[in-house]
């Protein structure tokens, strides 16, 4: 079937095709925004948009990390518990720092530093167990998920760990203040997304992730250090969880066993809605960002209207998630068909 057309031509087509693939989730988001606005014009108020973006930052940042893990053919179920655990440890560490040397900017920086170390460490453990101990990622992270969740419960004695009020006041602006009218969490989100995009599309690491997820054997025969790259995806995921936690803690100044429940599923959903393949081999950071926005917007719209019974919120979310993915897959197929005609 390869009618031999020489190597010329076809370069512009590449850009066009890429556009089309991104369009699916974007269309879903635009439809959702129109729906939100028509149900309640307050949806597009600056305040609400700011809330929505800030809120999506947690899931979004974690989902950027998850994009790498999933692209490389892995999965990380532990992120929600990991976030709760890191948040809890940050609060314990900052509280004890306050009691020994008083509250200052250094207290907060100490907490942030510990968060980064814990995140990277937790990611490394997941990576090590999947690559070196050769246990399926699903099982490893299911295990660490339970471990982190019960550790938080244990450290909080089943209750809530609350940040010392002195440290809280110093830390609080990290969540609530803005730069150029954009809240800091959103800046962090933007930064993580941009770096993630570059890493995925403009570095060897991203290419290796796609190769490994697409066919591990091919990657191995192509001189790629499969285990090392895989482990790095989990470390990156841990780092993203840590960053999300750093902007989460100042919001409520507390952590409990209820913190971050189901974040792992939301993050994975955001990744898939965005067009990354669950079985690996193909990752899209831009889509993930849109996926996170879609998920947050659904909850936001449901809160802004009362035309749907409260009891059906979960059903509405489910329908929109499935529809968004259908739109993305459907449009992709249509593009192929168009090409064939």
């Amino acid at each position, binding site marked *: 079937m390869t009618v031999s057309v020489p190597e010329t031509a076809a370069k512009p087509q590449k850009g066009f095709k890429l556009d089309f693939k991104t369009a699916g989730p974007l269309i879903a988001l635009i439809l959702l925004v129109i729906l939100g606005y028509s149900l309640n014009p*307050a949806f597009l108020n600056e305040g609400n948009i700011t809330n929505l973006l800030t809120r999506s930052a947690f899931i979004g940042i974690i989902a950027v990390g998850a994009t790498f893990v999933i692209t490389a053919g892995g999965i990380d179920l532990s992120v929600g518990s990991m976030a709760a655990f890191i948040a809890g440890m940050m609060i314990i560490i900052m509280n004890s720092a306050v009691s020994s040397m008083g509250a200052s900017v250094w207290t907060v920086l100490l907490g942030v530093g510990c968060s980064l170390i814990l995140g990277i460490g937790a990611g490394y453990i997941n990576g090590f167990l999947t690559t070196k101990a050769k246990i399926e990622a699903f099982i490893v992270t299911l295990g660490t998920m339970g471990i982190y969740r019960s550790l938080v419960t244990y450290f909080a*004695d*089943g*209750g*809530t760990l609350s940040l010392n009020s002195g440290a809280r006041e110093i830390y609080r602006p990290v969540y609530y203040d803005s730069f150029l009218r954009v809240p800091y969490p959103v800046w962090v989100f933007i930064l993580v997304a941009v770096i993630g995009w570059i890493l995925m599309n403009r570095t060897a690491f991203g290419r290796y992730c796609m190769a490994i997820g697409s066919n591990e054997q091919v990657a191995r025969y192509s001189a790629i250090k499969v285990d090392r790259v895989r482990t790095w995806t989990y470390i990156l995921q841990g780092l993203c969880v840590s960053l999300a936690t750093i902007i989460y803690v100042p*919001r*409520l100044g507390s952590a*409990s066993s209820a913190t971050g429940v189901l974040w792992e599923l939301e993050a994975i959903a955001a990744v898939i809605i965005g067009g990354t393949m669950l079985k690996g081999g193909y990752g899209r950071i831009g889509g993930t960002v849109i996926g996170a926005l879609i998920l947050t917007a659904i909850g936001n719209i449901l*809160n802004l209207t009362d035309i749907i019974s409260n009891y059906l919120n979960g059903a509405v979310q489910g329908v929109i998630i499935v529809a968004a993915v259908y739109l993305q897959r459907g449009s992709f197929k249509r593009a192929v068909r168009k090409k064939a005609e």
Partner: protein
Amino acid sequence: MSIKTLTMALVATTALAVPALAQEKIKIGVSIPAATHGWTGGLNYHAQEAEKRLESTYSNIDIILVTADSPADQAGDIEDLVSVQQIDALVVLPFESDPLVEPVRQAKAAGAFITVVDRGLPDASIQDVYVAGNNTELGATSAEYFKTRLGEGDNIVILRGIPTVIDTERFDAFMAGIEGSGINVLDNQFANWNRDDGFEVMQDFLSRFPDIDGVWAQDDDIAMGVVEAVRQAGREGEMFIVGGAGMKDVIKGIMDGDELIPVDVLYPPAMIATAMDVTVANFLSNGPVAGSYILGAPLVTKDNAAQFYFPDSPF
């Protein structure tokens, strides 16, 4: 981390091993949900405190405390308490009432004295004693307070818990209580007894409604999230918030005269301790104990807050 986990495991094994030595003791099994949110955290704390207190006071009482993650888990726990531990009495706070009817009935058939806490079983003949907080009264007490602060044409929003019987009882009683007062409920949404959800739902209420005079958050965890959202919007002066349960941070705030959360309605996790006391009394006092003990849902204000303040409790 690992050392701490190990210690936990050791403590757990020792706790289980010791009672096996003394045979003639009265064994009381206590089955409650695991500490998955603030209120159950408090429940676990009070159960453990009561266990320590009762065992040190009465040398012939042996209490076995087990926590469950799901109704099925709890059913298994109760079967084990009956068959392995051969308990003389069972204190149970059911995850859900219906699925636990049969396991509890079997414990009863094996001769155990049954105390049911908080969530009553549909077949009341199984339980010897019923100790409960009063969800209906929690709603009603809250409604009474709202009526004292607000009147005709004032707007409130309601943040509810998880769709369950407890939530419905509270909500229905509240709505009945404010009926005819002219207080206008703008909307109600579920916040799952969770701080983060409380924060997000309240953020959305704040962008949706320009005029809110009061928030009934129904639970202190939700209320904590609501407070942050209101502070973020800078609308603290405009409204007040009422939660429920009696979380120590909230009680402390009331003692200190917080304007934003001026009162709380009690739904104390300490009820498990009451139930355990009552059960022990059945064995150690002269006459048998039976009947229902419905705890009140009193309004906690600045004046009486100190007596509900447990600084050591995690909740």
